[in-house]
């Protein structure tokens, strides 16, 4: 290849992170997450995830435990469903990593509950479900591998607003309650503002900015130059700034904005 898909990317994310990866279509986001899951190996450089290290020389046999450790939910993951029943499909991953069939099937039922589907779906064929339900089954199939890191590639694409909201709050819960590290690839700045703790911005195969969500969104000029949208709350707050309002810190969500407004609301 003449042009590397990714060039000179260095960053480190803390344990138990919620990292959003943003940038335009074709900026290298998908390539980067496939590196983290070792579906692609770097041509130069090194990736360390907990106890695992990926270098250009890593062999496939070394990668299998890593793939269990880092779960990957691809775009439109419902297209990976194949088994005869929902339960078998969810149990497929864990069995590939050596779990016994009985344990895997029991785990599948548990995961079905985690993603908010009724137990009666377990014996149905995944192809009889609605698109949104199929997506939950696919996500349950990845969660069933009990990964410590979960990579999500535009997990809400194509869902209706209700489906999107439910899906994002599921990930928020997994992160908070089970301590899962999450890497979220998304175009939805509202989701970034609401859920992410760190943000990495990609552009033309390079990492152009990495920082906390607040740092990234605190520079409207830079966002504009990089054709990235600001969260609507931040845009709205800036409208008030132009009239002379000052903010302790720029609000990124409706809740944050309301907090700051309430704190200075005239009494009575």
């Amino acid at each position, binding site marked *: 290849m003449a042009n590397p898909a990714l060039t000179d990317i260095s960053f480190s994310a803390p344990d138990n992170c919620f990292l959003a990866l943003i940038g335009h279509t074709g900026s290298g986001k998908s390539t980067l997450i496939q590196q983290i899951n070792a579906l692609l190996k770097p041509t130069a450089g090194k990736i360390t995830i907990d106890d695992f290290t990926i270098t250009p020389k890593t062999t496939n046999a070394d990668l299998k435990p890593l793939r269990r450790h880092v779960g*990957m939910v691809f775009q439109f993951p419902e*297209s990976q469903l*194949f088994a005869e029943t929902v339960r078998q499909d969810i149990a497929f991953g864990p069995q*590939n990593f050596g779990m016994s069939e009985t344990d895997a099937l029991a785990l599948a039922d548990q995961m079905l509950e985690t993603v908010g589907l009724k137990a009666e779906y377990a014996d149905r064929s995944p192809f009889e479900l609605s698109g949104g339900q199929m997506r939950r089954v696919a996500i349950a199939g990845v969660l069933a591998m009990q990964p410590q890191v979960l990579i999500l590639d535009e997990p809400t694409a194509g869902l209706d607003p209700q489906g999107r909201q439910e899906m994002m709050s599921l990930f928020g819960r997994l992160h908070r309650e089970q301590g899962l590290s999450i890497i979220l690839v998304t175009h939805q700045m509202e989701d970034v503002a609401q859920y992410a703790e760190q943000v990495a911005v990609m552009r033309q195969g390079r990492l152009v900015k990495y920082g906390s969500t607040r740092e990234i969104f605190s520079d409207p000029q830079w966002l504009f130059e990089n054709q990235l949208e600001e969260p609507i709350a931040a845009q709205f707050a800036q409208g008030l700034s132009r009239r002379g309002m000052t903010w302790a810190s720029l609000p990124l969500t409706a809740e944050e904005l309301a907090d700051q407004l309430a704190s200075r609301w005239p009494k009575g």
Partner: protein
Amino acid sequence: HRLDPRAKLLLSFFYIVLVFMANSLWSYVILIVMTLGAILASKINLGFFLKGIRPLLWLIIFTVVVQMLFSPVGGHTYFHWAFLRVTTLGIITSGVIAIRFLLIIMTSTLLTLTTQPLDIATGLASLMAPLRWVKVPVDTLAMMLSIALRFVPTLMDEAVKIMNAQRARGVDFGEGNLFKQAHSLIPLMIPLFMSAFNRAEDLSIAMEARGYQDSEHRSQYRILTWHHRDTVTWLIFLIGFAAILVFRRW
């Protein structure tokens, strides 16, 4: 080599017949000259042609050796053991086979490198046009081939995507014996087929919405034009053909 794809298709078909008909030293000389002439006219680096030969090398050597050892008695016998013998006739036959291999591979490479698959499909459909008279739905078939070609890259991308998704779920593609491999393909193939069914359904609805009724009552945007150079090439080939007939040993 900007010939009309129809000319190219006909020529290569014709070429197979020629290779089959040629059976004398002179006829092969003519064929080789014609092939080399075509290659030179295409201005394509010879290295490409050698690359085309490499994967088939093993088959060529096998065929040549077997042909040499098992050939019928004829001419001088150089070597004889049990039913294996190497004779003059055997050496000549195997030499001829080797040349046939090389010629056909070179022609194939030439055609592949100079013609878009879509043009070949359009060309084929256009050549089949007379079959309309015997009620073969030529236009429908042409439309289908064109749609099939259009969807090949889409489905290849999708196959790679699903393969990656299943690898991330711990499937090892390309490992183990054939039966194991057959088994590991199921998680790839079922989603692919399901998706293909959906695409076909969407596609038929979209085509209908865009006013498609049947392929016979349509006008054509993409057309092929037969140029003088097509005629000239044909003439050269016809002369060659005649020459081969002349030199053929009856």
